[in-house]
C-alpha cells in the first residue's frame, strides 16, 4: 500500500516508521492511543483525491489531520489498519480578499501563521480564546470553536469550501462552486456559504470531524484590526452577579471581544496559579473597540458612555473599571492584543500551564443556567477530590448572548494514571449530568458520543446522519468510530 500511495503522491511522503507515527497516535485528549499503520503527507487537493480513490479501492480506513497539535482526539485512529492523512503541509494562504474581508486558506494554515500574514494588511482572524498557534484555523472553525468576537450575528466564519468526499470525489461548496470560479470574467468571490443546490454541505461538514470529507481549502472571514481598544473589567464574587450585565451588554451590542472567566482560567491566561490569590472569583472581560475606518474614538466613546452611565447605575454592587485588581500591571493594554493573536508559540499553552495537560468539558447552554452547571460540576469534582480551585471555567457568549459555550477545564498530569482515571470519571459523570440538566453537547468528543447518541430523541438523527454518511462515504473509510459512525 505504501508503494501504491507513493506512486500517487511521490516518494518520501508516506511515513511508516513507528517513532514517526507516535505523534499521530495520541494527543492531549482522553482518547486511547492507537498508532496508524502509516501517515500520508499530502500536498494539494489532487493528492487528497487520488489518495482517497486508492484507499477506497482497498477499503483502507483513513483519519485526516490538519493541525500540528491536537486536543480532542480527532486524528487518533479508532480502528486497526488505519492510516492518517496529514494535511499540515497544505499551508498555503492563497488570497486575502481585502474588499469583502475574507481569506482563502488551506487546512494546514495555523492561527499563528495566518495572523502574522493578516496583520501586515491590517486584518485579524476571528479567533477563539487564545488558540494554540499550531492549530488549524479551518479545523477549529469546523469544530465549532466559538469566537471571542461575539458582537455580530454571524453568518458563517467559513463561506465556500473545497472538499474531497469520502467517496473520492472533488466538490466545492457555497458560491465558489461555479465552475469558472477564479477565472477571468467570473465575479464570484465565494462568499456565500449556501449550497450549491438543495443541500447545505457546509452544515453537514461542520462538526463532522472528517467523517464525510476532507476539506482542502476554505474561505474564512476576517475583520479589521481595531485602531483603538479599551478593556473593561467586571469583577465579581459570584457568577450570579454577572449574568444580568452580560445579558445586557449583549443586547446592547457593547464590546467586541467579550467573555467571562473564573479566576482559575484567568490566572492561567495572565501568568500562573499564583495570581489566583489576588484575582476576583469571576470577571467579565469586555474589549471596546473602534474600527480603523469611521470614527474609532467615538465608536468606543458611546459604548463607554453606556457602561459608565447605564451599567454602573444599574449594577452599583459591581466595581466596573478599566483596571483589574489583582492582575499584573498593564494587562488592560495587553489584553486586546493578546486576544487578537494566538497564544505565543514560545510559551507553554495556557491551558496546560498548570499540570501540562487539561481536559475540557464543552457544551452549550443559556447564560441564566450557568450557575447550576457550575454547582453541579463542583459537586462531581468533589466526589473525586478534584481540587475546586483548579477548575477553570470559561463562558463564551455566542452572538450577543443568545446562548453561551461553557467550558470546564480540568488541568491534570497525563502521566499520573490516578489523575487520568479521575479525569475520565469526572468527564463521564459530568456529561451525563449536564445532558440531564439540559446542557447541549454539539462537539462530540471523548465520552460525549456514547451518551448523546443513546438518547431517545437522537435516534432518528443517528439513523439519518448515518445514511448521509453512506452517501458521502459509502465504503466507510473516513474516520470510522467517531461520532455515531
Amino acid at each position, binding site marked *: 500500500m505504501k508503494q501504491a500511495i507513493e506512486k500517487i503522491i511521490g516518494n518520501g511522503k508516506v511515513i511508516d516508521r513507528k517513532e514517526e507515527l507516535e505523534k499521530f497516535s495520541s494527543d492531549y485528549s482522553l482518547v486511547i492511543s492507537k498508532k496508524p499503520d502509516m501517515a500520508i503527507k499530502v500536498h494539494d487537493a489532487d493528492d487528497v483525491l487520488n489518495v482517497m480513490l486508492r484507499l477506497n479501492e482497498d477499503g483502507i480506513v483513513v483519519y485526516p489531520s490538519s493541525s500540528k497539535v491536537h486536543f480532542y482526539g480527532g486524528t487518533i485512529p479508532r480502528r486497526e489498519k488505519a492510516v492518517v492523512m496529514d494535511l499540515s503541509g497544505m499551508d498555503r494562504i492563497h488570497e486575502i480578499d481585502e*474588499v*469583502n474581508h475574507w481569506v482563502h486558506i488551506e487546512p494546514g494554515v495555523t492561527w499563528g501563521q495566518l495572523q502574522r500574514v493578516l496583520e501586515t494588511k491590517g486584518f485579524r482572524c476571528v479567533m477563539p480564546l487564545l488558540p494554540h498557534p499550531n492549530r488549524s484555523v479551518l479545523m477549529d472553525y469546523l469544530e465549532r470553536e466559538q469566537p471571542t468576537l461575539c458582537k455580530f450575528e*454571524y*453568518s458563517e466564519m467559513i*463561506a465556500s469550501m473545497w472538499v474531497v468526499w469520502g467517496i473520492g470525489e472533488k*466538490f466545492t461548496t457555497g*458560491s465558489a*462552486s461555479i*465552475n*469558472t470560479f477564479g477565472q477571468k470574467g467570473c*465575479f*464570484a*468571490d465565494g*462568499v*456565500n*456559504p*449556501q449550497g*450549491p*443546490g*438543495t*443541500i*447545505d454541505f457546509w*452544515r*453537514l461538514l*461542520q*462538526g463532522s*470531524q472528517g467523517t464525510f470529507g476532507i476539506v482542502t481549502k476554505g474561505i474564512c*472571514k476576517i475583520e*479589521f484590526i481595531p485602531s483603538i481598544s479599551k478593556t473593561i473589567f467586571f469583577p465579581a464574587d459570584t457568577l450570579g452577579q454577572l449574568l444580568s450585565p452580560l445579558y445586557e451588554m*449583549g*443586547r*446592547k*451590542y*457593547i464590546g467586541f471581544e467579550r467573555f467571562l472567566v473564573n479566576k482559575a482560567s484567568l490566572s492561567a491566561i495572565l501568568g500562573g496559579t499564583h495570581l489566583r490569590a489576588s484575582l476576583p472569583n469571576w470577571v467579565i472581560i469586555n474589549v471596546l473597540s473602534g*474600527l480603523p*475606518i*469611521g*470614527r474609532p474614538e*467615538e465608536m468606543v*466613546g458611546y459604548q463607554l*458612555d*453606556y457602561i459608565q452611565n447605564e451599567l454602573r447605575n444599574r449594577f452599583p454592587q459591581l466595581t466596573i473599571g478599566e483596571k483589574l485588581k489583582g492582575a499584573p500591571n498593564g494587562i488592560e493594554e495587553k489584553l486586546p492584543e493578546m486576544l487578537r493573536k494566538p497564544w505565543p508559540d514560545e510559551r507553554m499553552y495556557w491551558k496546560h500551564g498548570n499540570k501540562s495537560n487539561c481536559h475540557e468539558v464543552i457544551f452549550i447552554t*443559556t447564560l441564566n443556567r450557568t450557575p447550576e452547571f457550575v454547582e453541579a460540576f463542583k459537586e462531581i469534582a468533589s466526589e473525586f477530590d478534584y481540587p475546586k480551585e483548579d477548575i477553570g471555567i470559561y463562558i463564551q457568549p455566542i*452572538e*450577543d*448572548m*443568545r446562548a453561551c459555550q461553557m467550558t470546564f477545564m480540568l488541568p491534570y498530569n497525563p502521566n499520573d494514571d490516578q489523575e487520568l482515571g479521575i479525569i475520565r470519571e469526572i468527564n463521564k459523570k459530568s456529561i451525563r449530568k449536564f*445532558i440531564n440538566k*439540559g446542557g447541549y453537547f*454539539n462537539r462530540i468528543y471523548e465520552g460525549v458520543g456514547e451518551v*448523546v447518541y443513546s*438518547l431517545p430523541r*437522537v435516534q432518528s*438523527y443517528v*439513523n*439519518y*446522519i448515518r*445514511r*448521509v454518511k*453512506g452517501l458521502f462515504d459509502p465504503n466507510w473509510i473516513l474516520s470510522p468510530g467517531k461520532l455515531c459512525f
Partner: protein
Amino acid sequence: MTTHYILETEVKEKLSQMRRNPYWQEAPDGAFKEMEEVVGSRWITKEKVARQAYCGRGYGFEQYSYLGLSYPPCIIVLPASTEEVAKIVKICNKYNLPYLPMSSGWMITAFPRHRPDMVLIDLQRMWEWKIDRENMVATLGAGVRYGHHCQGCMEYDLWFINTGGGSASCVIANTINYGVSPLNYRMGNAERRALSLEWVTPEGEIAYSGSWTQGEEGFWGDGPGPNLMGMLRGLDSWNGGMGIVTRMSLKVFPFLENATKVLVPEGITPDTHLSFKDTDRIRWINFQLPDRKSMEECIIEASHTQIGAAWTKVPVFWRYIAIAKDKEDFWEKWSGVNKEDIDNFHLLRTLFVGYTSKKQMEYELKVCEDIMKKYGGKERRTRPSDESWIKNADANGMYMMTNSYISTLGGQESLRCVFETGKRLGDLLSRHYEECFLPQKGDVGWWQSNDFGHSAYLEFMLYQNADYWDPISPFFNPEIHEKGLKWAMEVVSDVSNDTGACNFFGAFHHGLLYKGPNWSNFQVWVDRFKNEFDPDRLSNPPAPYDPEEMIESLPHGMLTKIRSYIRRAKRG
C-alpha cells in the same frame, strides 16, 4: 363584445387539450379513512369544492411556464401536531400517494402543479409560538407568519427579519427556503437563524436537530455532530421535496426597549404604516448618490464601518408602486420615466437603529455623513415610518402593476458580483427583452449588503402581462411568451453562470439540471439524497425538479437548449 375573455366552452376546449391527466383524481378510500382516524373528520376532506380552493395557479411566472396546469389535490388534511403529520406521511408512503406540505400557500410550491393525485397537508393549524426574551429564542409552529411573528417579537423588545416574500410567508417555510431581507445585514443568513428543528422525514419519521436532540429547550442548533438541517436547506430549496419541518426554534434579535411604543401602527388603509415615534432611535434615510460607481463604493465602505441596520438599493419602480394610487396611476407615472432617468438615479436606502443608545445612533449617523460627503451622497426627504420591511412587507404590492410577477434571480455573492450581475441583467433586458415584460428601463434590480459587507444579495424581478403569458387567454402571445421564457430560463441562467451570482430561485425557474452542471454538478448530490430518502418521489414531486415530468409537462415552455441541458446533465 364579450363580458370577459373567458367563455366556458373555449376554456374547456383549451384545457382538455393541455391537461395530460384527468382533473379530478380520487384517493384510495383506505388512505382517506386512515388519515381521518388520525386527524378527525373535521380536519380532512375530499370534497371537490374544497380541493378546488387549494388548486393554485402559481406564483406569477410559473402559472404560465407550467401552462397553468395546476390540479386540485385529492385529499386535504390539516394535522395539528408533528406526530399527526408523521402519521399522514406514513400513510402516504403506504399507499404510494405523493404529498405536499403547505404553510401559507403563498408560493408556487404550495400547489400541486403537475399532479392530481397529491395529498395536500395544510399546516396552518400549527400555531405554536413561544419566546424566551432573555435568551432571544423563539419557538414556532409551521403555520406562524411573519407579520404576526414580527409583532410578537416587538412586544418583547426584539425583532426579526420580514422577508422580501412578504408578511404572508410562514416563518419556518421561508427560513428553510429563502429568508432574505435587507435586515440580513445584521441578522445573517436564514440558515444561521434557524436553531433546533423538528422534521418529519419523507419516510414519516420524526427527526430532531440541534438542542432538541438532547432536551426540550431549543436554544441552539448545529449538531450533535453534523447539522441535519444541511439535508434540508441549501441554496436552492427543496420546496417541500425533503419532508416537512413542522417546528423550529429561531434566533430573535436585540431591538429597542419599548419597541411597540416606538413603532406604532397608524393610518387608514391604504396608507397604513409603522410610524416611528422616536427618530433618534430608528430612521430610514434615503441617500441620492451622483453616479453608480459612487453608490457602489459607498455601500462597500459603509458596510466596512458596520454602521446601520440595512443598506439597500431598490428598483426605481418600487418607489412608483409605493406612491401610486392604483395600477393606472402607476403606469401614468412610470411611462414618464425614461432610461436616462434610471441611469442617473442612484438611491441608497438605509436604516439606522439606536440599539445601544441615542449616542450610538448619533455616532453612526456622523460616520454615515462622513461617507456621504466623500461620495457626494445627498439625503433625501424620507418618511419616518416603515411600510415594507419591518412588519408589513407588502410583497403582494408587486402584483399591482401587471397582476403577474416573478423573481427570476435571487443571487447571493459579493457586492462586486451582484453589481455586475444586476448591470448585465438590466442592460440585456432593456435592450433585447423589454417588450416581454414591464419595461424596467435598465434598472439593475434590488440589491443589498449582507453580513456587514461580507456578502451581498441581488434580486431581479420581472413583471409580465398576465394575459400575454396565459395560454388560456385569447390574448396569449406565444412570441412574447417564448421570448420571455427564454429570458427567464436561459438568459438569466447564462448571466448567473457567467458572473457567478448563484441563483436560489433556480429550482422552479430554470431547473436544477440546467444549472447543476455549471456549479460543480451539484445535481448529482441532489439526486443521491432524493434517491436515498425519497426514492419513490412522494415528497412534493416534482419539486425541486423532476426532469422527466418537466420535459413532458412543458412542451413549449421547455426550450430546446434547456431540454438538451437536462438530457445531458449527469445524474446521481
